[in-house]
């Protein structure tokens, strides 16, 4: 064979393939048939959504991984729910309720005619059973702590099959919001397991899907580990649209398990996916906008995130084992100096590519109910930072660019963060650069998640930079973080001798938890935010703007700053029937 001829043929083949590829990537819009679409939602169709991981259990009272929230929103029901857009409590399986004068007793009137997906009627017995299962010692339900006030459990009783009375042991500021996590499980399916003491293992992932019944808009049809879950429309779902159409609109939701977020974005752009469970990362914004220009995706600005990256020093004295650096780490002035030293505008620009706003406390403007705009602020001022450090005896005595105390102990710290998360690594690099200007040296130690968590729980670190999620915006959902003896008081685990300002926060948080007047609660919590910002046990720099991308054919998407971003509203989602994907 003539080698040259062969080479020419190969080259021609490559060029032809390249041309076809180029055509296919540049002309799909021209080739697509003209379509007319309606914005009126209609019944039928399916959407494909995705997430990083699948379930560990189908039992919502046991499962606390992120997927459990998706699963329950698709397949289960509660008496009331927190609307993920307004953050207000709204009726769900209970159509109305009465409150006693002392605010301790709620009488719920259950919605008539509601049945489980297998046709069995829903009654007050199911609510009582769910409360019993949550507080059963053997069931190991993590929800039990949520449904306690001052450490005492709520009590439930039934007046009749359609009326439930729930009594709070003490006045509860969040009140009904607590019941957002009271998922109702079917007594007729799980009573045997509770009696046998095996409730914690009931509805494991090897349970046949037909045994998993619920009152959500969808029912589980199939689960293939590591691949996907398929949810079919629940024909017995109780909710109707304003025009009387039985919800949900969709016939099916497919949840693909895609571990890699880059691959997930490519599938979203190609139209293989309709929705994801998370907002866009800063780096994904531009490609998503391009896809929006082509008409394949829609990109919605969801709002400012209610969560923010946290930077803190370990304030547990024992963890420093006599390290002399703790003498200045424990001083609020040292942390205030850090706060002054960081140019938050620049931080937002470099870490979140401009899609973020500066913040000075854990409650961000994204939390519209509880954000306090007058929280003490530390505007960028390197001189003030240096003066504060000097006041602590920290100066660069040997000219190496790092400040040290009179005994030569340098302000040099190792900061742990989670490996593989772009904005954490960028954020830490930015902090390192900015704090170097005032002589504080940071050394980054990115660790994978399990190791990082273990180091945190064991207080085996000097400083840390990460972010914590939340399922509600009410401070009650973060009580274990605010209280000095709380399980999630992460900057000082096992704090048995709180500083005076911490003791004051403890008292204020308990007071606002027991206050029924929401205006008064807000005023008390503002005070908590003030004390927190003055003492800065944790320092916050910026909160990102959240953007959410989804397939343009999906209608009814109301993205939320809380997760799941879109599936919280799954019964109202629909697809354009006359369109093409």
């Amino acid at each position: 064979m003539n080698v040259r001829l062969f080479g020419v043929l190969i080259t021609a083949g490559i060029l032809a393939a390249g041309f076809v590829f180029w055509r296919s990537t540049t002309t799909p819009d021209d080739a697509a048939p003209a379509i007319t679409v309606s914005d009126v939602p209609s019944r039928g169709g399916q959407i494909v959504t995705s997430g990083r991981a699948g379930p560990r259990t189908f039992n919502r009272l046991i499962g606390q991984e992120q997927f459990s929230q998706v699963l329950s929103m698709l397949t289960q029901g509660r008496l009331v729910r927190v609307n993920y857009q307004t953050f207000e409590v709204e009726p769900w399986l209970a159509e109305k309720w009465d409150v006693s004068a002392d605010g301790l007793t709620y009488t719920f009137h259950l919605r008539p005619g509601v049945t489980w997906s297998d046709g069995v009627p829903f009654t007050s017995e199911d609510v009582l059973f769910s409360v019993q299962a949550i507080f059963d010692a053997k069931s190991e339900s993590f929800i039990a702590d949520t449904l306690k006030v001052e450490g005492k459990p709520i009590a439930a009783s039934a007046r009749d099959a359609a009326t439930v009375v729930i009594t709070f042991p003490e006045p509860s500021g969040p009140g009904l919001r607590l019941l957002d996590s009271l998922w109702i499980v079917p007594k007729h399916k799980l009573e045997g397991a509770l009696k046998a003491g095996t409730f914690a293992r009931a509805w494991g992932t090897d349970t046949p899907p037909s045994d998993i019944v619920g009152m959500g808009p969808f029912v589980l049809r199939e689960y293939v580990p590591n691949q996907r879950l398929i949810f079919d429309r629940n024909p017995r779902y109780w909710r109707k649209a304003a025009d009387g159409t039985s919800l949900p609109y969709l016939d099916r939701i497919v949840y693909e398990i895609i571990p890699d977020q880059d691959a997930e974005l490519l599938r979203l752009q190609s139209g293989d996916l309709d929705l994801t469970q998370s907002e866009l990362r800063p780096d994904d914004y531009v490609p998503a906008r391009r896809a929006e220009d082509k008409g394949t995706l829609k990109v919605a600005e969801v709002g400012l995130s209610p969560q923010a990256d946290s930077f803190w020093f370990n304030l547990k004295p024992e963890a420093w084992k006599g390290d002399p650096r703790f003498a200045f780490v424990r001083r609020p002035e040292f942390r205030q100096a850090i706060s002054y030293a960081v140019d938050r505008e620049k931080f937002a620009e470099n870490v979140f590519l401009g899609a973020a706003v500066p913040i000075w406390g854990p409650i961000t403007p994204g939390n519209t109910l509880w954000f306090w705009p007058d929280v003490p602020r530390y505007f960028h001022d390197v001189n003030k930072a240096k003066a504060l450090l000097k006041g602590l005896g920290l100066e660069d005595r040997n000219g190496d660019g790092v400040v040290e105390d009179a005994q030569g102990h340098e302000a040099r710290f190792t900061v742990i963060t989670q490996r593989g998360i772009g904005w954490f690594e960028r954020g830490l690099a930015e902090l390192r650069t900015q704090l170097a200007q005032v002589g504080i040296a940071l050394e980054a130690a990115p660790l994978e998640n399990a190791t990082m968590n273990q180091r945190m729980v064991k207080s085996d670190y000097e400083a840390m930079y990460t972010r914590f999620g939340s399922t509600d915006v009410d401070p009650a959902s973060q009580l274990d973080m605010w209280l000095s003896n709380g399980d999630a008081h992460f900057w000082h685990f096992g704090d048995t001798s709180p500083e005076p300002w911490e003791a004051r926060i403890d008292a204020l948080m308990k007071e606002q938890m027991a206050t029924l007047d929401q205006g008064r609660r807000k005023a008390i919590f503002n005070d908590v935010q003030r004390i927190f910002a003055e003492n800065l046990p944790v320092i916050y720099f910026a909160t990102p703007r959240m953007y959410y991308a989804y397939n343009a054919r999906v209608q009814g998407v109301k993205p939320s700053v809380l997760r799941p971003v879109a599936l919280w509203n799954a019964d109202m989602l629909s697809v354009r029937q006359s369109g093409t994907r």
Partner: protein
Amino acid sequence: MGRFFVRRLAFALLLVVAVSSSALLLTRLAPGDMTSELGLRARPEEVARTRARFDLDRSPAAQLGGWALRAARFDFGESFLYSRPVGGLIRRAAGNTAVLALAALAIATLAGIPLGIITGSRRGALAGAIRTASLVCLSIPPLLTSLLLLFIASRTGWLPTGGMTSVDAVDAGWLAWMLDVARHLPLPALALALPLAATFERLQAQAMTETIHQPFVVAALARGVRGRQLLIDHAWRASLRSMCAIYGLAIGALLSGSFVVEYVTAWPGLGRLMYEALRARDVYLVAGCAAMGGVFLAFGSVVSDLLLFAADPRVREGQTA
């Protein structure tokens, strides 16, 4: 012959035990454990219960001993991540990986070996182009290859963008399901096969170059043997020895699963399962995946021996003697 294979099987068993035991111990001794997956708000009693359920409250040696006794009865324990028996999870994932590995092996063999014969026996532009392409394929990390192929698939729509099956195949019959798997196979198989094909090409080329200068090839040429007959029947067959050794190992490595390719392309195989188990410190799932990987590596080693046995008369004679 019989003793030879008994020895090989004993070695394989030793390999499986060593690999799975080491995996269990290393996972256990690494910082962090599965209870960190329970989150910051996990109550101490819940953490303690989880640790007891997965024998983390026992010493590593006691845990290993208990697991080994159960594993001897083919009970590999329960997975923390999936709340299912490890055995079933591994069987399913290993089957998926086997499908992918065999496809990748077929592509790599059919492309790599003929190309190696060409580059090992010829000079010129074509051989140079093949060599360059091989070096490129060897240089690009599998992560990049996977993402690149995924990108092409997403932009062109020629192939599905990941996964093993599509939703439409759920209600379809077996034939439609198999066709659907076949549609999903090329992308991850190519990502795995490209560097392997390049390796085969390079090794085959080197072996061919060495072989065609051997006296028996020159003698065949002097006897008038020409062209394809000389190349294939004489030179190639003799060059197969070095290929056989690497071929078996490649089979073992492929069957053990590539977590990068499986992770990016969302192929539900052994590599991805192992990766997720390691991330969550799911100790029994890690040990189970490692045991299965060990089985495959041992299988590859046996295949390698068999191929060598078939290809090299000296090995057969040695065994006989």
